[in-house]
């Protein structure tokens, strides 16, 4: 094992710094037509009429598609269902004249040039009949109900049943906190605009460059809706300019690009603009009520977490919010609930650390408040309630090095220099605050199939349909594969981002390294056996009596473990196979049966320093340290970036980003990057990451847990707690604006 654990720079780096990396909207295929989408300006109601005549009269406009002239499509809802669809009825673009949400796509203009299509969009005249709508969660609390169950519920079960007698225990406990938390809507805003370039190949065949986190998910969606054979639809996504969850479901530019290409029998690209990036899914608003109670010694006696979230009128999007406190802390009395309010908005969609980042903000701020009541150090309170087994299931963890995270990060940060008194630490004209919080995330793994083979040149070829959305997947998978055969990285080619490759789920939930990575190990073991069998067939094979356990691989050789000088070259084995690549395709899947007795979690601890101007109350996160326990780290360089990137997201969630909804219009008001604030370079100071040692021999073949989201979950609470420490003010709504401290 020499590649795993090495800090390797991204293998596709050169393409990214020279502009040769091609994203979905970068394929300038011949005779390309450009599509521009027109969106509804009302929130709910009906289209009475659409006048497209002026638009059609503009030179260069080829066609305008509306619900009135769209081609006949699959009729049944089920045909529109993608792998990530929540229970309910999938939204069907241009289905009829009904408007379900503001920004709903209502027409597509196709023209010879992008700017002509855009110009034509201003010439479309639509008459609407408006209806009353509800878009405010806080005005519709009484409509809260349980989430409907469906396929997606497997990953998002309802919260656990109550334990003991919460009300009694809460009332009788000497220390208790009851608080309410809210956060605004957020939009993913990957830097890359959603785009699809559809290449019309004829004979019912399409090659599609799509911005997606799941090539096969898009392939199934297109084939089902347009009645095409799966094998005739090829979806490619070799480079994806960020996703953060927004690409987990096929978005409407895919639908429009394919529809127009099939109808016009031409190559068509549809690229959304930044404003349209706010019209297909978001992190939902959530109202959370927490009540935690403790004994005098700090031991928790009662935990309650009630969450109310929004969904659309047509699908029940759910998150895991209410259960996390009890996965961290034991208590004999619990009460959890998660309810949804359907509103006239589009269905929310997973956004980096969905549910967890929402919940941990509330939980870890409540813990901080409780610590202050108890006059106990916040870190000590966590350690006092440290769970060695998962309190919510009474199952042991496959591994849990959270204690190490706490201690290592606290030491690095200098937590013991903290004076607990709010407002007591200053630096010139700045109030200084130290805050900490815990992070937890599920160690997901999905089934994945991997094809692996050795070719005539002795190179290892590995294939899987996964994407690399900036996660480092290409580099990490290449490292994993190389180690299976003792190869250097340039002796391995990992093929990905292509629906023609063997199955992968969408890239989400921090699951890809565990999913595809484990499948590589499994397939490699099968390939080793195949290679040995073939090696034995060579005349006078020096390995003819060898068994799989006796052989090892290094730089193109298979050799006897105890006699290194006895070996066969892999190239000779392939030659004996008439030069044909020797390969196998195998399935890797979570160890469901063995793991059913365990809880599998990733953990983190974050420590944050804020500086707050005494007069202006402007807030700066000057330092943050996150320690992560995520099993084995395949590539410390790309994994560190995953964590620091998530920490930036945590800072953003705590202090910057929010989509503002106008209650009178039922629409978002800041649908651009000037008014939707995210941290700029000057806002990001010092971020430090520690990966603590965590050996996990149960979780999967590699002992990995995933690092895409764990770096985010603890940061918002750590910042809010630091702001309290600096100012004595508890601001429970995110993002925290400086004027709330004035």
């Amino acid at each position: 094992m020499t590649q795993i654990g090495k800090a390797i720079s991204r293998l596709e780096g050169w393409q990214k710094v020279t502009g040769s990396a091609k994203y979905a909207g970068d394929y300038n295929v011949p005779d390309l037509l450009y599509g521009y989408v027109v969106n509804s300006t009302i929130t709910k109601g009906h289209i009475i009429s659409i006048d497209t005549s002026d638009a059609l009269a503009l030179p260069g406009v080829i066609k305008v598609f509306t619900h009135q002239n769209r081609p006949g499509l699959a009729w049944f809802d089920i045909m529109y269902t993608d792998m990530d669809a929540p229970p309910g009825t999938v939204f069907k673009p241009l289905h009829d004249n009904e408007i379900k949400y503001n920004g709903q796509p209502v027409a597509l203009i196709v023209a010879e040039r992008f700017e002509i299509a855009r110009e034509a969009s201003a010439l479309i005249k639509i008459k609407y009949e408006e209806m009353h709508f509800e878009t405010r969660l806080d005005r519709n609390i009484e409509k809260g109900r349980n989430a409907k169950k469906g396929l997606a519920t497997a990953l998002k079960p309802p919260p656990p049943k109550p334990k003991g007698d919460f009300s009694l225990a809460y009332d009788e406990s000497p220390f208790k906190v009851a608080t309410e938390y809210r956060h605004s809507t957020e939009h993913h805003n990957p830097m890359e605009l959603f785009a699809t370039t559809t290449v019309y190949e004829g004979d019912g065949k399409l090659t599609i460059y799509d911005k997606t986190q799941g090539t096969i998910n898009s392939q199934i969606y297109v084939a089902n809706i347009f009645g095409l054979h799966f094998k005739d639809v090829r979806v490619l996504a070799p480079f994806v300019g960020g996703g953060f969850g927004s690409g987990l479901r096929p978005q409407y530019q895919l639908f429009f690009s394919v529809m127009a290409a099939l109808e016009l029998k031409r190559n068509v690209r549809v690229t959304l603009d930044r404003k349209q990036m706010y019209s297909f899914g978001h992190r939902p608003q959530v109202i959370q009520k927490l009540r935690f109670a403790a004994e005098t010694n700090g031991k928790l006696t009662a935990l309650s977490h009630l969450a109310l979230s929004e969904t659309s009128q047509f699908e029940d999007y759910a998150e895991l919010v209410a259960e996390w406190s009890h996965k961290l802390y034991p208590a004999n009395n619990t009460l959890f609930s998660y309810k949804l309010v359907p509103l006239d908005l589009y269905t929310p969609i997973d956004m980096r650390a969905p549910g967890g980042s929402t919940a941990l903000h509330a939980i870890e701020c409540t813990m901080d408040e409780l610590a202050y009541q108890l006059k106990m150090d916040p870190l000590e309170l966590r350690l006092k309630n440290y769970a060695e087994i998962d309190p919510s299931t009474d199952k042991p963890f496959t591994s849990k090095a959270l204690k190490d995270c706490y201690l290592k990060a606290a030491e690095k940060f200098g937590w013991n220099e903290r004076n607990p008194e709010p407002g007591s630490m200053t630096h010139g004209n700045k109030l200084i605050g130290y805050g900490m919080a815990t992070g937890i995330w599920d160690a997901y793994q999905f089934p994945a199939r991997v094809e692996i083979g050795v070719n005539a040149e002795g190179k290892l070829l590995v294939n899987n349909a996964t994407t690399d959305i900036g996660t480092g997947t290409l580099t990490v998978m290449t490292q994993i594969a190389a180690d299976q055969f003792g190869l250097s990285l340039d002796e391995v080619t990992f093929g990905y981002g292509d629906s023609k490759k063997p199955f992968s789920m969408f890239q989400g939930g921090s699951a890809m390294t565990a999913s595809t990575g484990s499948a590589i190990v499994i397939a490699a073991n099968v390939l080793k056996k195949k290679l040995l069998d073939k090696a034995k067939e060579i005349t006078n094979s020096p390995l003819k009596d060898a068994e799989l356990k006796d052989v090892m691989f290094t730089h193109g050789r298979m050799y006897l473990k105890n006699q290194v000088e006895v070996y066969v070259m892999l190239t000779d084995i392939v030659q004996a196979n008439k030069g044909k690549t020797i390969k196998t395709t195998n399935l890797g899947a979570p160890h469901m049966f063995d793991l059913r007795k365990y809880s599998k979690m990733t953990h983190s601890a974050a420590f944050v320093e804020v500086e707050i101007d005494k007069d202006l109350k402007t807030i700066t996160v000057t330092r943050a340290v996150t320690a992560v326990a995520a099993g084995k780290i395949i590539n410390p360089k790309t994994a560190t970036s995953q964590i620091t990137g998530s920490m930036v997201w945590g800072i953003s969630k705590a202090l910057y980003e929010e989509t503002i909804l106008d209650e009178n219009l039922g629409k978002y008001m800041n649908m651009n990057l000037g008014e939707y604030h995210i941290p700029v370079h000057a806002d990001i100071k010092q971020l430090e990451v520690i990966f603590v040692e965590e050996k996990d021999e149960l979780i999967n073949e590699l002992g990995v847990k995933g690092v895409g989201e764990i770096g985010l979950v603890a940061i918002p609470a750590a910042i809010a707690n630091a702001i309290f420490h600096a100012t004595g003010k508890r601001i429970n709504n995110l993002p925290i604006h400086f004027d709330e401290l004035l």
Partner: protein
Amino acid sequence: MENFRQINLLVNKQPYTLAIKPYVSLLDALRDYLDLTGTKKGCDHGQCGACTVLVNGNRVLSCITLAVMKDGAEITTIEGIDHPLQNTFIEHDAFQCGYCTPGQICSAIGMLREGKAHSRAEVAELMSGNLCRCGASMQIIDAIMEVKSGGSNE
């Protein structure tokens, strides 16, 4: 079709003549007419920096620049860049998805040439027009600081 203007652009040392409508942005001209798709569109509103190119050596947001305004100008896009920053970006892992990267690199070259940044904080400030949603800010500034303290382009 009416309203076409003929313009000349020198892009990455290659001369081009284009017949183009006056409302076509320099960004769309580069991407859709000249097939130089290394320059990215992130907002089309001058708010993200993804479309940054160098015009006569100065960093410019090509999405809020009309192509006809730059008739006769010398333009360098990421495809024409050969600069030590490209290696330090890779070395420092100064990108994840890579979508903002062409803009970051062009902007950094322009920023170093301006010569106004004298500290890490000033570099970060003067690079703040280039957003990175992947959150690679710290690594981007690290990569730029390495080149800056190496003395190149100062």
